[in-house]
């Protein structure tokens, strides 16, 4: 069984906007031809997002590792003997 194709993540650019630089940020966005709109997070929510991301990553890693171990268990004998008998119980 083939393993799922690894993900290729898109690059995301974070912009920090404060009360001091807001005008500058929007002006720069207009200048660069972007819609002058930002989807915001507070600093606390940013931390939560980072932690959620890390938790998803950990879960993905565990699931993937488990898949490797099952593959090793069920398919190791196939490579050795060319059949599917050893661990097919």
């Amino acid at each position: 069984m083939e393993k799922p194709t690894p993900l290729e993540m898109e690059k995301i650019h974070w912009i920090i906007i404060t009360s001091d630089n807001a005008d500058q940020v929007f002006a720069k966005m207009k200048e660069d031809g972007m819609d002058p709109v930002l989807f915001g997070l507070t600093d606390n929510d940013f931390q939560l997002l980072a932690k959620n991301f890390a938790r998803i990553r950990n879960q993905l890693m565990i699931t993937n590792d488990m898949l490797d171990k099952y593959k090793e268990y069920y398919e190791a004998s196939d490579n050795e003997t060319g059949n599917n008998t050893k661990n097919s119980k």
Partner: protein
Amino acid sequence: MLGIRLFLIGIVSASLIGAGAYVFKLRADNAILKANAVKMESAITEQKELITKQKEDFQEILAANAEMNKLVKNLEKDLNELDKRFNKNNRDIGKLAVEKTKLIEKIINKGGENAARCIEIASGSPLTEKEKNATKKSEINPECPSIANPNYITY
């Protein structure tokens, strides 16, 4: 007299035939017993093989569980490190972002890139040579060194 002779001959003949039939039956029973013994031996051998296999499987499962627990601990450590980076020495990331906006923006973007790479690795992407050979703190992916930099040892 003839009747008695015939009677005796009949008895002897019947005895011989009976004895012969009994011997044949014994032989047949013996053959069945031998066949059963062979089957039993074969079954015992199979059972022994199965028990050995089960023991091996059990050891493999224990080893796999131990590895899995190690992985979970390391991942948990990475998560705690992330928490520390945000809150070390009562650090307030919001306040820092107000004071040093460009610097923090740069750090956040680098962190985002590293975190995205961690997801790729977790989904099965092979490690690059640079990631494999990273041993210094400046060379590692600080978001997930336990999976991205196998040769990095935390002190």
